């Protein structure tokens, strides 16, 4: 079947609607965020294939079955990758159904982690190992904790103190994704300041390979309720198989989560996947009534007394200095 390629931005509402309909037909859901779109069209303008570039992630990739096996996928992905390179984006990621793994292998993508449903790929075979090389290695019992710290509270401090007492070395990975109220730079600085003097604690950015919510592949999973679970499985499989063994991590710490359903679901999946791969999960009872969302509320309502009750002096000083209050 003949097709021609069209490349650009989804501008008109009409085109957007057509694209949404096509993706819906293919079992995907369009949720916006496309910086650039490549489409394969029939002579009559019917959409036969679609793929989008969202930041450094390739998304919404689908091809009509009438075109499958004609190198159409190659044309589509090649055009997307070229566009990314033209924009100076060279580190690319994608999520795909496990069935499409070989297709993307052929265009230079390598699997970072795969679960039953989903495959997470990067356009480099050495990206992960190069990142791991930058992290120092420790012996003994090595633990890890991944936190957003938006901002750093007394609760976070208590969690890190408790965890560090149960390990010879504790990695604190601060979520790098800049999707929170406080920027990564601010959150990282507050954790650094708040853990100063804790000899066996190493604070690091979580990087691109741990909990990057922005890359959440909700779009191609029909049952929305299962989405969090699939993402959590992928994230934790990557941690258990590719990250923890290299850094000698044998313990993962996590605080109990009474408020956020997504985090709670994530923690539940953690308890299934990590122990199965020889990593102990230690859930630490969180300090009563302290949460980062309360801190943000206190800041918004200008409640200084409440704020002092929730965050350590290091955080308070930092927020004041940077005029973030």
């Amino acid at each position: 079947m003949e097709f021609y390629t069209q490349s650009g931005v989804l501008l008109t509402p009409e085109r957007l609607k057509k694209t949404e309909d096509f993706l819906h037909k293919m079992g995907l859901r369009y949720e916006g965020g496309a910086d650039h779109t490549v489409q394969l069209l029939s002579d009559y303008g019917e959409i036969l294939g679609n793929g989008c570039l969202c930041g450094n992630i390739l998304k919404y990739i689908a091809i009509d079955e009438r075109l499958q096996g004609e190198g159409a996928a190659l044309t589509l992905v090649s055009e997307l990758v070229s566009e990314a390179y033209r924009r100076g984006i060279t580190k690319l990621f994608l999520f795909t159904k496990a069935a499409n793994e070989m297709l993307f292998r052929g265009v230079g993508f390598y699997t970072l982690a795969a679960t039953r449903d989903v495959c997470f790929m990067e356009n480099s075979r050495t990206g992960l190992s190069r990142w791991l090389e930058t992290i120092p290695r420790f012996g003994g019992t090595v633990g890890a904790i991944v936190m957003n710290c938006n901002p750093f509270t007394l609760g976070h401090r208590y969690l890190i103190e408790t965890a560090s007492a149960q390990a010879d070395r504790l990695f604190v990975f601060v979520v790098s994704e800049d999707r929170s109220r406080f920027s990564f730079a601010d959150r990282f600085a507050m954790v650094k300041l708040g853990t100063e003097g804790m000899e066996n604690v190493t604070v690091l950015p979580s990087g691109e390979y741990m909990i990057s919510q922005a890359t959440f592949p909700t779009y191609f999973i029909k049952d929305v309720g299962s989405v969090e679970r699939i993402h959590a499985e992928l994230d934790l499989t990557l941690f258990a198989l590719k990250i923890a063994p290299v850094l000698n991590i044998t313990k993962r710490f996590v605080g109990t989560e009474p408020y956020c359903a997504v985090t709670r679901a994530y923690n539940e999946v953690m308890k299934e996947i990590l122990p199965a791969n020889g990593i102990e999960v230690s859930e630490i009872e969180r300090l009563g009534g302290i949460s980062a969302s309360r801190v943000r509320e206190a800041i918004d309502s200008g409640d200084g007394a409440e704020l002092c009750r929730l965050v350590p002096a290091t955080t308070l000083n930092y927020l004041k200095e940077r005029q973030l209050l």
Partner: protein
Amino acid sequence: MPPKYSSIRKWEEFFVMEIKKTGVAGTMESSDIIVRIEPKDTEGVELTLESAVMQQYGKQIEKVIRETLGELGITRAYVNAVDKGALDCTVAARTSAAAYRAAESTAYVWKNGGVK
């Protein structure tokens, strides 16, 4: 005062190309190759090759890429290549184009009719 040994050594021997950023050249179309070169702190060229004709020509493609980089004096780089059946001359051309871009260099030396 002229440099000490300049008259007896070819200028290429002084030529060491430093990879400063990621450079890309080529496409994923049939008969082409896309080469991506990234900076590396340590000595050595680390090459990842994916090819439609890996079984038959994988070794030859790798040889051409390594030789081309050697001629340019590149000793530290991560190289990622996805080949779709490119001829040797294409492999060499794409590799050197990616290298010049990665080194932010425009001092390209046109070979004499393509013959060494």
